[in-house]
């Protein structure tokens, strides 16, 4: 029997693989945020107005808000099952820095809950009469923005994972924090439509992604240490 200690990369990859496998096995969890995104986006034409012009004007906001809510709904899956079955304790007692393991879980979570939303967004955008010529911007901003939403959300989930009913409290904590991403995303779309250069806006979103990628897992890891006590 070999007793070579696992490398950090090995542990991170194992965690990534495991979480993807769990998501694959629990197809409901995989499908729910995606369905939710489509449903919420469908409600707007019904609730606001089916008039194409009006829809086109609000479509970027509708898509972004739907993505925000869908990512909030999906967040609960991130640590909850692991907390309840005790896997989280194993993760925390590993010799590897929790920061990277949490990051791995975040990445896996985004791949199954965020990426499908990004991929389906052009279709929903078309149904909402989204202005032509901004499709690539929309997908690009969602691609940069939804991981930020997941990373921020994971802080809230980590803080509340020990609570029995955490639905509303998670929203109160997470939604205000997501506002800058919402602003950046929708402004980028509307400004490119007005002919502004895309690069500056994307740089801001990229900066948000980099900042949350480096800082949010720190906060999540610390929050987990508090919650799993």
């Amino acid at each position, binding site marked *: 029997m070999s007793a070579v200690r696992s490398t950090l990369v090995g542990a991170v990859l194992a965690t990534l693989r495991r979480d993807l496998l769990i998501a694959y096995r629990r197809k409901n969890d995989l499908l729910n945020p995606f369905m939710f995104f489509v449903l919420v986006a469908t409600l707007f034409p019904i609730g606001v107005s089916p008039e194409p012009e009006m829809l086109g004007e609000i479509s970027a906001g509708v898509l972004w808000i739907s993505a925000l809510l869908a990512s909030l709904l999906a967040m609960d899956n991130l640590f909850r099952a692991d907390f309840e079955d005790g896997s989280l304790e194993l993760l925390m007692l590993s010799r590897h820095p929790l920061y990277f393991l949490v990051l791995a879980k975040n990445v896996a979570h985004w791949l199954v809950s965020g990426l499908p939303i990004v991929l389906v967004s052009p279709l929903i955008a078309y149904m909402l009469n989204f202005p032509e010529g901004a499709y690539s911007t929309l997908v690009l901003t969602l691609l940069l923005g939804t991981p930020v939403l997941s990373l921020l959300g994971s802080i809230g989930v980590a803080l*509340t994972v020990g609570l029995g009913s955490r639905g509303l409290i998670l929203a*109160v904590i997470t939604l*205000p924090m997501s506002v800058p991403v919402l602003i950046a995303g929708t402004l980028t779309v509307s400004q490119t439509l007005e002919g502004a250069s895309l690069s500056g806006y994307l740089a801001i979103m990229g900066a948000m992604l980099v900042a949350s990628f480096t800082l949010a897992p720190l906060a999540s890891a610390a929050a987990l240490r508090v919650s799993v006590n």
Partner: protein
Amino acid sequence: MDWTWFHKWGSPKWFYELSGKWLPWLVGAMFTFLLIGVTWALLFVPEDYQQGLTNRIFYVHVPVASISLAFFPLMAMSGTVFLVWRMKLADVVVKVAAPLGAWFTALALASGSIWGVDTWGTWWVWDGRLTSLLLQFFLLLGVVSLRTALEDSEGAARACALLSIVGCINVVVIKYSVDWWNTLHQTSSNFTLAADQANGPEIWLPLIFMIVAVYLFFAISLILSTRNEILQREKRAQWVMDLVAKS
């Protein structure tokens, strides 16, 4: 370096006794400033004919809004002190500051919207400053409800300290992004301060009195609620029992 002051500060009993000595002075000073500020602002400041009488709410709104911005930095600092040095008093501050901050922010929002009636002709406009304040209000409510929801006192303390730090960083990002959003959408002109238009001392001097008064009010509310929380937490300690027996 001598660290005794640090440990002393960490002792709830010490703080309770010291703050008891400060309080009368603070309260006296607050009422003095408030009286001067209010009478001056309401009776003697020349009426701004463009904005009418309502404009005088500016003397409430500006001090309250500026102090409500201090809550997250205060909570984040106390939270850091608590997480790093486990100073219990710091957690008391984090705990009492959250609902207090929510009240102050609500007051700033209310006074801002009253001011808005005359400026914009409506109670609410998605003005940059008001929107940031509203989001800060929600974030503070989040800290309050997290504290209520987590029953474990030690865990709740640490979770709220952590959330305060995260929230503080977030409030700054929110502030900048909302400003950005607001300038691009241009729904309304921002507040134009009366003080900017007529920069005479008869306009800004009463404002300074009001700012000092509100800051003192903030300090007093913080100290009072901290003392209250200390008594609750230390209710089984001998010195609290002695205190109760004496009164």
